[in-house]
């Protein structure tokens, strides 16, 4: 199974689950499976045109998907996805 770690700020949308497990596949398939289980995540993950939100950064085993083939990256059993919505900090 592939483990998706859910960012704290999205957990209300998936019943406070800190992580969700789905079947392996391409990254886009994995994310779609996540949305199927928790439809409220759709607005956070995808634009109205169903493109990945540009403010998201997704990491596969701590490596940015940019270096792994983007949405077509292949995920295997044991892989972990870490999603970081882009936000800023101060002070």
């Amino acid at each position, binding site marked *: 199974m592939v483990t998706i770690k859910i960012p704290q700020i999205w957990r209300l949308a998936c019943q406070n689950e800190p992580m969700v497990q789905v079947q392996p596949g391409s990254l886009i398939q994995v994310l779609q499976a996540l949305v199927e289980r928790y439809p409220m995540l759709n607005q956070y993950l995808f*634009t109205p045109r169903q493109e990945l939100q540009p403010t998201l950064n997704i990491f596969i085993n701590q490596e940015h998907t940019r270096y792994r083939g983007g949405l077509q990256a292949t995920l295997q059993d044991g892989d972990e996805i870490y999603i970081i919505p882009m936000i*800023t900090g101060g*002070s």
Partner: protein
Amino acid sequence: MARGYMGEILEVNLTTGEIKVEELDLKLCHDYIGGYGLGAKLLYDRMPAGVDPLGPEAILGILTGPLTGTPALVGSRFVVVGKSPKTHTWGDGNCGGYFGVALKTAGYDGLLFSGISEKPVYLYIDEGESDLLDAGDLWGMNVTELEDAIFEKHGSDCQVISIGPAGEKISLLATVMNDKERAAGRSGLGAVMGSKRLKAIVVRGGMTIPLHDTRKINHLRREYMRQKMGFYDTLHKWGTAGITADSALSGDSPVKNWGGAGTVDFPMEKAKKISDDSVISVKDYRPYACSSCVIGCGGRLRQDSGPYALEYNDRIGHKPEYETLCMLGTNLLNDDLPSIIKLNEICNVVGIDTISLGGTLGYVIECYENGLLTKQDLDGLEMTWGNAPAIVEMTNKIIAREGVGDKLADGVWKAWERFGKIGTEYAIHVQGEELPAHDPRFTPGLAATYLLAATPGRHTQGGELLGPPAGLELDVVDKHDYGAQGKNHYKLVTSLETSQAAGLCMFGYLSFPYHALRDQLNAVTGWEFDDEDILKAGERVFTMRHLFNLREGHNPLTRNVPGRMIGDPPLTEGNVKGVTLDLKALVNAMLEELDWDRETSIPSDARLKELGMDFAIKDKLGWDVPVPA
């Protein structure tokens, strides 16, 4: 008459001791809103170009916005403004806490200080009555001691802003402090306050802030609270400390003086030690909220044992936030949370900027690690990566201006000069302002912000793809499509300018729907701003601060750009490896939206007319602005 304003500012001449009440020009308020927008216009009109920022002609301003102290989400902010002695550009520092509200309810939208007092003084305001009082016995006190002394003398129901010993010693790292631990941190304006021998401003207020539609603003507060989103949950639980580990992984935070990668040099097991749950699980942690803030991103904790036990306030101090955790943590490869908590206290009690301190220490460490500085140069200290005891000891030298600390007490640019201009690539600053902990290699739009904003190297000025509030419509653009981000960048920057000039906290802007800004501003003031008006007002604010710089002969396009800021050369590891930004494309895209000249950065006559800033059309004829080589 516009509501949200008290209608008066106080002008204080510290040389003569004269205090004058001046009626606030509400037409100016409609155009520049308040805060640093209004401040920039007032200082532009009253201060000639070329003044010494530490001289008697320099004006230091303290200003609120129309939403400060109202039920608006989140109306808690005030701003300190002036000419920065650090960057020699426009300078400002934004702060929350309780002072801004107290100032307004004491009857004033702002304070302007000129001149230099012969002896240390503080300004005392009690609901409209104001006096300059002798601060001889307060001079030399740290911020905590000062506030305690003020409360003992005047009662604990006043609010205080002050400088610590750093400001008194004219350190360019000096901040203006409020509520002991809230800082108007950047631009070195604490040094300006110190140069005027103005130790503190004490206010007590109880007046009512007039509102256009009280019922409406209260309704909006409840309505928008129900729609909180985005950053809210993270801020409410952890404050900005909640993102430290994620940012070290993603490439957002600087690692190893901007030369390292989180995945390699500061992996998750280290990063987690100075992030989220690690921070809020420190002993006796309690959240802290600024005036009427529903987010409550702050927090206080107790550290009463070990080598980094806190010294003041019953061993209780404010938790270090993201910038501090990164600049004194990830940036220095320091995963020792207790040392960072201690450093935070040190900076707060003496009044210095933690971001600038971290940038300066990063330079020193990298010079030492590369043999450019020796132990002898550094008073026997072994300044190596992650060496927490040495980092703390060096910080103590800096705040005392003792030994090598005197070379470092004015920031990285001065340190680089004083060490003979060694390690240029390790001095990470723009125009003297050490970069904050958000890497443009991760958020490319920030490169244009750090370069173009009136205050160089400032992350709180908006930037492309910076997690915009819901409802702010942006084009879907790949963040590495550098030339395509102008429109988005313009909207992010100008909307945030209006929000901040109005006295709202940036975290409110990020936590509630975008239209809360427009709706609350209209409900409080009685104006009828639409979405376009919000952006235009923000552009006017952004431009006014920029015009101050142009008149000084400063063109942001000539600022230095550290290679590490833009990936020149690119990192070879981590999650921003291989990234080199096309800074010219990013900047030109924004210049096009602003209609500023691509060489001089001077706004076009047409745009100045459109903004109602016709005065600048004539003024600019006399400006002597350098252009990039």
